[in-house]
């Protein structure tokens, strides 16, 4: 039984295909619906409401950060930009997970980069928003690198985060899940697992498609189900997996459940140029500057939609409106802080079992965001921008004549949670890998300590921040989980490891 169908669940589903071919029942339960490509309209509110939890407005418990995650056949792989990186060796080393080495993760990462068709966009398909980032980085003394992308047939619609209207992203919805289904793996959509018990029963609610709602109806009749599983793999994401276990009462025996949540808190930065640039056409995220090791941040190109952009700019009134009216002349950079797992930053459930995320910005996280904002301002001005919008400056607009003063104008004292917009889409931790139940929830193969029938295969496994875009690493770790399951199935062909 696999709960979730994103980078983790989709990978495990495909790797379980041999078992399905051998007549075992492999079932994937996905909370979200199955979409047709034609349903991706590119319209901001319509797609956010269809794809994201709380229409993209899921807030941390104190309301100071928005967390974005999707529910759909393919999970969040529907809404990423396809950026495909291999985790640096130092990150795996620093995690210190016994029996997890970088060479293994890299080999498995390359397997999925090949499987999902990762390549580099040719220069003629790179828009000005990305080109100005490269030019500005060079002028400001930063080293820009090109993102490998898992695209096939990208027309440059520029709305990756709203679901590709051309089906160009090679997420699990395009690659692993169809392959798994062809081999006999069963995928049930609109199926939310409400809880599970120690007897391996899953209590599932299949919801009806409402009139006018996007997505196909579920493969099963709407209603409540109790399903007895042989092995359960949770791939419901860094919020969904720990929340499901916590509301199922596993928090007592798994003391680290929900702990160690990290998310790469991010700002969307904007700069205004004198003349229009190509920004809302072409792939939005083709280059990055990696300062994670030195300064604790990563800069990425980005291009968002009008409401998302408006929401993420600090302030209001005429300066804000004037910037929005300059949309065709806007360049954008996403800054991501490499936060660290910290006590108190965790996933929990409220009294009715809904997930809640406690998150406080640590001083080093704020310092990283400020350093990243200063670096971005230099890149914008290096690219010729007239003015830069920096959330942690007061006032947030910095004119070109003040370009030499960015270190003075952009400061931690102006990073005021609840005023500045912070969002995150790289949600990690909550069911961390480690040595034993004292320091973690699972071992390096996603086996939950003392519960051999229960596995985790998603970003909740990360013991700390990944410091890069996570989907390739999620697939690599999920591949290890699937390998462990296959090995056990071979040892115990009809008993404990049988997948019900």
């Amino acid at each position, binding site marked *: 039984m696999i709960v979730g169908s994103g980078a983790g669940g989709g990978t495990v589903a495909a790797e379980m295909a041999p078992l399905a071919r051998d007549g075992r029942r492999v079932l994937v339960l996905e909370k979200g619906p199955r979409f047709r490509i034609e349903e991706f309209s590119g319209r901001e509110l319509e797609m956010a409401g269809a794809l994201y939890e709380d229409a993209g407005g899921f807030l941390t418990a104190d309301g100071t950060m928005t967390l974005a995650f999707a529910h759909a056949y393919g999970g969040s792989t529907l809404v990423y930009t396809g950026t495909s990186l291999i985790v640096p060796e130092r990150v795996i080393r620093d995690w210190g997970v016994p029996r997890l080495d970088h060479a293994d993760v890299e080999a498995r990462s390359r397997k999925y980069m090949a499987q999902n068709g990762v*390549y580099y966009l040719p220069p003629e398909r790179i828009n000005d928003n990305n080109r100005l980032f490269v030019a500005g980085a060079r002028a400001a003394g930063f080293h820009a690198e090109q993102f490998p992308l898992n695209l096939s047939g990208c027309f*440059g619609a520029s709305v990756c985060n709203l679901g590709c209207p051309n089906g160009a992203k090679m997420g699990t919805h395009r690659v692993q899940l169809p392959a798994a289904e062809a081999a006999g793996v069963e995928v049930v959509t609109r199926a939310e697992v409400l809880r599970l018990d120690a007897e391996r029963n899953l209590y599932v609610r299949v919801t009806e498609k409402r009139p006018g709602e996007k997505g196909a109806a579920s493969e099963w009749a709407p209603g409540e189900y109790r399903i007895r599983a042989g092995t359960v793999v949770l791939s419901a994401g860094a919020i969904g997996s720990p929340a499901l276990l916590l509301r199922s009462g596993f928090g007592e025996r798994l003391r680290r459940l929900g702990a160690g949540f990290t998310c790469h808190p991010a700002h969307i930065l904007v700069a205004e140029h004198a003349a229009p640039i190509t920004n809302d*056409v072409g792939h939005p995220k083709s280059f990055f500057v990696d300062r994670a090791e030195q300064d604790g941040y990563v800069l990425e190109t980005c291009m968002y939609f*009008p409401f998302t952009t408006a929401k993420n700019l600090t302030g209001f*009134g005429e300066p804000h409106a004037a910037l929005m009216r300059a949309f065709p002349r806007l360049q954008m950079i996403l800054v991501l802080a490499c936060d660290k797992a910290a006590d108190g930053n965790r996933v929990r459930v409220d009294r009715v079992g809904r997930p809640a995320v406690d998150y406080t910005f640590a001083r080093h996280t704020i310092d990283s965001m400020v350093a990243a904002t200063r670096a971005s301002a230099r890149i914008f001005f290096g690219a010729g921008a007239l003015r830069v919008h920096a959330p942690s400056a007061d006032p947030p607009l910095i004119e070109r004549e003040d370009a030499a003063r960015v270190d003075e104008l952009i400061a931690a004292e102006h990073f005021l949670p*609840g005023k500045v917009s912070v969002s995150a889409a790289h949600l990690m931790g909550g069911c961390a890998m480690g040595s034993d139940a004292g320091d973690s929830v699972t071992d390096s193969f996603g086996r939950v300590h003392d519960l051999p029938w229960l596995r985790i295969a998603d970003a909740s496994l990360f013991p700390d921040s990944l410091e890069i875009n996570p989907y390739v690493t999620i697939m690599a770790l999920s591949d290890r989980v699937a390998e462990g399951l296959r090995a056990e199935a071979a040892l115990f062909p009809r008993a404990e490891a049988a997948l019900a």
Partner: protein
Amino acid sequence: MNPAAASASAVLRPVRATFRAVAKTVVPDMAALDEAAWTRVEAIVERALADRPARMRRQLVVYMRLIDGLALARHGRRFRSLEADARQRLLERLQDSRVLLLRRGFWGLRTLVYMGWYAQPSTAEAIGYGAAKGGWAARPGLTPATPLPDVVPAHELVSRPEPGRPT
């Protein structure tokens, strides 16, 4: 909007005048809206609110009443009757408040205003946002003007050109 939430719509009704005054301060372009345009804005906001917890809807109403209360206490007039400068200053005080709850409340209110305005396709078009399904092919007049310097790719890959695409 789910059926249970539908009955909770019209959250803005008791505070509509304050909401509109806040919206015109947050987005000055909205000062020119006619009644039909306001109806469109408020329908978007109501739809978003209907799917949120009842507690959040109540907090929003309380927050707008607080704005009115602050205006009365400081200026002796409701928020909607204040001059533009006074409205701006009052909202800035909330935005920069030392109290997280007040900052957060303003952030939420301002987000709803932005949603009601900038999420409308007509506004997106008016500000020059033109993303299209067809991408480059749908916008033949657009070509990158910035030279692209040589850059180092992040990883050596299995496949350099797009798999299955002619080089």
